[in-house]
Structures are given as structure tokens and as C-alpha cells.
């Protein structure tokens, strides 16, 4: 997030796009709801499903899955055409406006309404006018923007809009992505990415390599950017990757196109999995290490607003259950490294030495203070709002982006749009939530959510077992009939191995950041006759 959670009361209004906030980030969802319901702030919601927030929205756009960029372009078209954008901000702090304006010319409300499947084009105009009045408006988004082939462009479009409105660098404004897991931010900051060291320092540089070799007392590191998760799976499938070491992830359940992932893991010569349960992925391993669960650990995690927070050991792990860092260190030592961390604190000291944005953070400080990176020195209070005076690159760059349709369009054989996602009570592959009583009892099984029109077309009743198939696979799952998605769009949560949504999804990737296109593919629904 460019801004902070505690600024929510300072926003005059909100645009929530591609985020089912009250289910996936419920605490932030409630904070936004409080502003809107109890304090009459404005709310614009864009989401294919009629999520809870949509009920309180001044404008709700039930767009066709995968058409975020078109509607964002539509809003911007109106802002520019009616001269409602923040001219001063754009002139002083941004560049690339002319090109953006040119690209936006064709995104008239009618054109956009047609792409997005919205009935009332005039609502786009009204909503854009409202946005211009909200000083400031905060934009929140989540996987509903990123999990598309065009995900990176979707993210850039949100930035375009907020720059155009002059909502960057001000309290209560900003572009605020909500991260799906508690330490996505930290994992990225720490360099658990194929192309960057900690603090996003590129690996493809001899100078950076030399710097890290010196810091780590080693030689022979690589300047070649590595493979992303999906590329690793493909390389394993092709036999180029021979061994894998997986810590705390369950790709068999969470990656798209399950069959392909399983084959890839089977092709490996050697697989090590380190986890708390014998997960679906661990079953394919040669060695499985039992690791501590998060409340058995000490360390730090960085939340979606860049706040670095301490985690304490609440429960003592069983004797033969070990910390993840300890296990890695033991292997490293056996392979010739001279690491000797005694506790997470020792690791953190090394982190701040090589990560400039964390340099001023200590275990002691985060016990007492609220610190958000960048925090370059011990005296620095941390950074609540990014891009206050300037953007990281100087001027904010508008990126002219055209709408591109999703990879898989519906056809006669697969006429229905399938989207996937999470529900309030569960998390990811379900390993944790389905082993927690209250959550498991509340929602014990998967379902396919469909509109009553579709249900009657296929002659399906609520709770009936149906078959949902795509080009990749087929599952049996109970129908839940609800006026939430539009007709011809169905939704399946991906937490349940018995009815695994990722047997169905496509594994085509965003060309830049390689996010699988989870949110949309084409399927067919069939009644299972008794």
C-alpha cells in the first residue's frame, strides 16, 4: 500500500476494485464499511460478483470478469473529457499524460459499457464525476486486479487513475493493494523473488552480485535471473529442473492446472518439502521436514502497509519440530557454508545490513513503535505515506494501456465464465483452516455459486451435485444458487481438495509478472443425472 490502514477515516471516499474486502481482508473491509455505513462516506465498487460492499455502494459495476482495465480507462476518459482531473498534480508531478489521453480517446462510456457488460453507460460518467469530488479518494484492490494475464497492466491502470485524480502522496488517498497472505510483502522485500536480492536490488548486475558475495562471504553467484514458480514447474516438467526445495507452500493445491503440477513434481529427481502437515505436495516428496507453525516461531512479518511487526513464540513446538531457518541453516552448513545463527534476531541483524529500506529497524523498536519501511536509519520514524513529494523515479509516469480480452473466451462447448477465489472462513489450500474446528464446521465443503437463471437453465436445484468441466479437467461439486454473480458467470472457492478449483483453471501467465490467470476461464456445467 502506498498509504496506511489508519488513514481510512481520512478518506472522503473509496474505489474498491477486484477486492472482496469483507471476506478476504475482513478487518479492513469493516473499517471501510464503517466509514460508508456509519459516516456516510462515498463508495464505488467494481466487481463481477455482488460482494457485500456492493450493497452499500453509491455506484456498483458488475463487470464481466477480466475487464478491469476497460472500466478504469472509461473513468479516466470521462475525467479528461470533462476536464475534471487534477491538472496541477498532473503538470507538476507526472509525465506521459498526452499519450495516455490519446489512448483513452476511444474508451467512451458506451464502448466501455459494451466491453464490461454494463447496462447503464451513464453510470460510468456519474461515478467518474463523483471520484473527482472526493478529496481524497482511496483506491483498494486485490487479486481481482492481479490474477489476470493482464494483471500488471491492471495495476498500472489503478496508478494512472489515482495520479490523474491527484490522490497520490496525500493522507487518505493512494493505491492500496491488499496482499493475500500475511507476509507476501516481507517475502518480496527479502528477495524471495527470482530477479531481485533483498530490497528489490536486481540480480542481473555484476556490481550487485559482487556486493552480495562480499556481504555473504561467498563466490560464484549467478547474475542470471531465475525462474518464477510457474516457470519452475514447466522446467521440471521438461526435465531441466531436477531438484526442488519447497518451504511452506502447497503448489499442488494452489497452482492452476493441478494435473500439470503433479506431473512436474513426479518428473523431479529429488523433492524436499518442509511443512507443518503432510500436504498434497508433500506426498510427492523424497524428504519431508516437520516445521514450526507460525505461533511456534519468533521473527518478523511485514503487512500490506509495509509495517514490520514482531511475532512471538506463543506455543512451544514438539521436540522434533524445527524452525524453518534452522533447517535451511543445517543443510547449508553441510554444503560448506559457515552460517551460525543462534536465533532469528541474528538473521534480522544481517537483513538490516543488506536491506537499505529496513536499515533503521530493530527488534526493540518494533516492540514499541509502529514502523513502516522505508526506514533508513535508527532515528527515522518510518514512512506512513509513499510518494509524498516525488515518486521513486522522480515524476509519476502514466502508462497508456489498452484493454485486452482474457486468454480463454467462452465458446459453444464451454459457454460459462468461471472465476475462482476465497471465502471468509477459509484460506488457500485449506490445510490450516480446514483443520480448525469453527471454520471447518462453518463451511465444510466447496460449492459452485451460480445465478438462479443459470440454475433453471440447467435444471439444477440448490445443493445439488453438478459437474463443472473445462478444457483441463472436471470436478463434481454442490451448487449454491445465489444472485451474486451475473448469469453465465460462476464462482468456485479453491480451498477444497475434494472439489479442487485448480483442476479447472488455466495456467497461462501474465507476460511480465507471471501471475496465473485464476480469475477467469471458460467452463461448462452439467447436471449429473441420477
Amino acid at each position, binding site marked *: 500500500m502506498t498509504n496506511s490502514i489508519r488513514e481510512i477515516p481520512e478518506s472522503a471516499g473509496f474505489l474498491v476494485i477486484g477486492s472482496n474486502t469483507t471476506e478476504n481482508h*475482513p*478487518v479492513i473491509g469493516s473499517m471501510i464499511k464503517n466509514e460508508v455505513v456509519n459516516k456516510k462516506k462515498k463508495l464505488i465498487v467494481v466487481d463481477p460478483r455482488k460482494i457485500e460492499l456492493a450493497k452499500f455502494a453509491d455506484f456498483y459495476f458488475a463487470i464481466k470478469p477480466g475487464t478491469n482495465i476497460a472500466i478504469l480507462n472509461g473513468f479516466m476518459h470521462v475525467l479528461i473529457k470533462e476536464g475534471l482531473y487534477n491538472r496541477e498534480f498532473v503538470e507538476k508531478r507526472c509525465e506521459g499524460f498526452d499519450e495516455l489521453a490519446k489512448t483513452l480517446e476511444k474508451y467512451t462510456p458506451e464502448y466501455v459499457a459494451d466491453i464490461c457488460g454494463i447496462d447503464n453507460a451513464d453510470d460510468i460518467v456519474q461515478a467518474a464525476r463523483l471520484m473527482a469530488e472526493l478529496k481524497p479518494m482511496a483506491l483498494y484492490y486485490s487479486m481481482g486486479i492481479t490474477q489476470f494475464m493482464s494483471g500488471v497492466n491492471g495495476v498500472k491502470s489503478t496508478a494512472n487513475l489515482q495520479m490523474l485524480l491527484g490522490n497520490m502522496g496525500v493522507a487518505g488517498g493512494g493505491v492500496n493493494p491488499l*496482499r*493475500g*497472505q500475511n507476509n507476501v510483502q516481507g*517475502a518480496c522485500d527479502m*528477495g*524471495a*523473488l*527470482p530477479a531481485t536480492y533483498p530490497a528489490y536490488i536486481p*540480480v542481473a548486475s555484476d556490481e550487485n552480485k559482487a556486493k*552480495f558475495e562480499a556481504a*555473504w562471504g*561467498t563466490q560464484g553467484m*549467478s547474475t*542470471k*535471473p531465475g525462474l518464477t*514458480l510457474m516457470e519452475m514447474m514447466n*522446467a521440471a516438467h521438461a526435465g531441466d*529442473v531436477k531438484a526442488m*526445495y*519447497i518451504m*511452506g507452500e502447497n*503448489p499442488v493445491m494452489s497452482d492452476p492446472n493441478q494435473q500439470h503440477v503433479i506431473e512436474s513434481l513426479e518428473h523431479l*529427481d529429488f523433492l524436499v518439502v518442509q511443512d507443518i*502437515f*503432510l500436504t498434497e505436495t508433500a506426498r510427492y*516428496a*523424497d*524428504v*519431508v*521436514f*516437520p516445521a514450526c507453525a*507460525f*505461533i511456534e516461531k519468533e*521473527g*518478523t*512479518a511485514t503487512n500490506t502497509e509495509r509495517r514490520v*511487526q514482531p*511475532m512471538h513464540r506463543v*506455543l512451544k513446538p*514438539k521436540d*522434533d*519440530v524445527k524452525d524453518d*531457518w534452522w533447517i*535451511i541453516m543445517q543443510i547449508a552448513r*553441510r*554444503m560448506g557454508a559457515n552460517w551460525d545463527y543462534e536465533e532469528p534476531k541474528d538473521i534480522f541483524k544481517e*537483513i538490516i545490513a543488506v536491506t537499505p529500506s529496513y536499515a533503521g529497524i530493530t527488534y526493540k523498536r518494533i516492540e514499541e513503535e509502529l514502523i513502516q519501511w522505508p526506514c533508513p536509519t535508527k532515528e527515522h520514524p518510518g514512512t506512513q505515506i509513499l510518494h509524498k513529494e516525488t515518486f521513486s523515479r522522480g515524476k509519476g509516469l502514466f502508462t497508456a494501456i489498452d484493454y485486452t480480452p482474457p486468454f480463454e473466451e467462452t465458446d459453444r462447448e464451454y459457454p460459462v465464465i468461471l472465476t475462482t477465489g476465497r471465502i*471468509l*472462513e477459509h*484460506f488457500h489450500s485449506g490445510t490450516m483452516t480446514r*483443520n*480448525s*474446528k*469453527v*471454520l471447518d464446521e*462453518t463451511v465444510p465443503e466447496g460449492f459452485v455459486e451460480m445465478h438462479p437463471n443459470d440454475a433453471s437453465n440447467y435444471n439444477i436445484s440448490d445443493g445439488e451435485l453438478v459437474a463443472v468441466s473445462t478444457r483441463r479437467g472436471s470436478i463434481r461439486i454442490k451448487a449454491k444458487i445465489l444472485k451474486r454473480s451475473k448469469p453465465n458467470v460462476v464462482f468456485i472457492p479453491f480451498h477444497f481438495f475434494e472439489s479442487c478449483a485448480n483442476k479447472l483453471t488455466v495456467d497461462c501467465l501474465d507476460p511480465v509478472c*507471471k501471475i496465473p490467470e*485464476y480469475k477467469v476461464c471458460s467452463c461448462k456445467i452439467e447436471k449429473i443425472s441420477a
Partner: protein
Amino acid sequence: MEKITLTIDGKEVTGIAGQTIMEVARENGFHIPHLCYHPKLSKTGACRLCIVRINNTMLKASCTEPVVSDMKVITEDEGIKSIRKWLLGLILMEGDHNCLYCDADGDCQLQAYVKTYEVEQSKEDFPVIEREIDYITSNAIKRNENRCILCGRCVRACKEIQVSNVWGLCERGSSTHLIADDDKKIGESTCVKCGTCVQYCPTGALTFQPVLGKGPNWELKKESSICIYCGVGCKIDFYTNKEGLLVKTMGHEDGPNDGHLCVKGRFGFDFVQSPKRLTKPLIKKEGQFQEVGWNEALDFVAQKLSAAKEQFGPDSIAGLSSAKCTNEENYVMQKFMRSVIGTNNIDHCARL
């Protein structure tokens, strides 16, 4: 912001215009007894326990009364004391406050005040209206309205923090009572089980269903950590009992969550103590997993990875780190892949 100077119990303090006496008193370390007041909720001045004497004359509810320059506030004198005692006595009469059977025993604001003010149950025969007891319809929340003091905190917590508007007070006078939605059982209502109303209930009228462990409140140990289920990163206080079992969780007021939690942060942690947890390293031998010692497993992995590196080069090895692991663990994992293996084939599930 206009500064205001006043005295509380003879000590000069300053506040800001618009603040209440309660707020300024708390900031300056004074404790004024209260039941319906909570700093995170709107103020109603309903319980009257927080009355203070102003300028040696009037009695006012300190949770709603704004501070005024040169005001003299007395937080307790003999008169106030006897009123508080009388108010507490009334509350005790109206309900069934037997702490022996109550989950809130030892963690109850009413109990604490009753002890402080040495209140005893009245001997008078007071008509007690039997109210709803519901320990079964919800797997998250237990409800015993006979312990409810009608402070309305749960109503405000659900309306202002969770914003689900489940609870409401209905009817008036002695028949006032609490209902969920339009008079449904809590387990059949629109409650999303965030548990916030329980966290803010000052008595044992609302309590959590037990998850794993049990034990009296004074034996529980508290430690904070960060929720694992989403990027909000809610700070949670975990309570464990003498046996080391998890009993309950409370939203920490200094976290990004401001005291709030969702159902996952509230009830999502019994998996940690699940019997299905892995407890020993496993090596697959002839298609079957076998438990082995740490040294054997570690030696084997080190040898296999070294061999792959030797034979096929560092880029034949790939590592997946985890967005559920700590910064320290992610750092060590990428350092391992880069400096020990010699490849940049390291990623995690950020995109998923």
C-alpha cells in the same frame, strides 16, 4: 486545537476541546469506574457508574461530559461511592451473577467492581426475569442473557467495528433485552463470528465456545503474534492454559487492526495443535515414508542437492519460499539458493 486546563482530583491536567472528562482522565492515568463505556466505541452514558462530581456540586456521567476550562473534577467521594454501590447492587439483583459457573470469572469488569465496592447480593425477593441461554446454536459464541447488564457494548461493537449490525436492544424498562437480527438465535443469525462483541462484553453474558484448552482466566498466559491469514497483519493476543493449549484469542488494540479480528484470526488456530501435524522428518524409502532422525534426513538432503548441483549445475535446482513464513526465514531461504546453491531460481506464492 484549543487546549483546556482543568483539575482532576486536585491535579492540574490539560485536554483538548471536544474531549470528554473520561478521555482526559484516562490519558492522565486516572481510573474512573465504567461499564458501558469503551474507548473504541461511541458513548451512551447509560450505566451511570462513571459519574463524577463537577465543581463540588453537580454529578455528571464522565464518559459523555465534555471538558471545560477551569473545571474541577472529583472522581470519587463518599456520595459517589454510595451511588456506585447502589448501582452495582441493582445490577446484581436483576440477573444471575454466580461467578462459579461463569466463563468470565476472573476476567469480568462487573466482578471486579463488585469486589472493589464490596457489594453483596440483595436478600430482597426481587422478581428476576428469566432470559435466553443459548450455548448451542453457534459454534463460536455462547450466550447467557441472565448475566447481561444491558450496557449495549456488544450492540455498538457489532455496529461500529464489525459493522454487521447483528445485536440490538429491544423493548423498554425491565423487559429490555438483547436480540440478534429480528429475534433469531445467534447461530441462525447473520453473525459472521468475528467475536468482537464477546471481546467487548464486560461480563460473562457473551463468551467464546471453547476451542482446544480450558482453564480459569487467572491461570492463562498471554502472548502476542501476528495473524497468518491475510496481509492486514492483525496483532493478536493468544491465551494459553497451564497445559500449553490454546484457549482463546483477543484482538490487540495497538495492531493495525485496532483491536478487531475476523473469524479466521479469532478461531483459525487449532490446526497448530492438530494431531495430524508432522512430528518427525520423513524419507521415502521404496515408495513409503519412514520416520528418520534429523541427522540422517539433513545429511541425505545435503548430499542429494550437492550431487544435483555437481552433475547438472546450480540452475537445475529450484527453491520455493513462503509468504506464510517470517522475513528471517524468507531471507535465509533466498540466501541459501543464491549463495550455497548458486542459482536465482527462488520464488514464492506472492502471485497466488
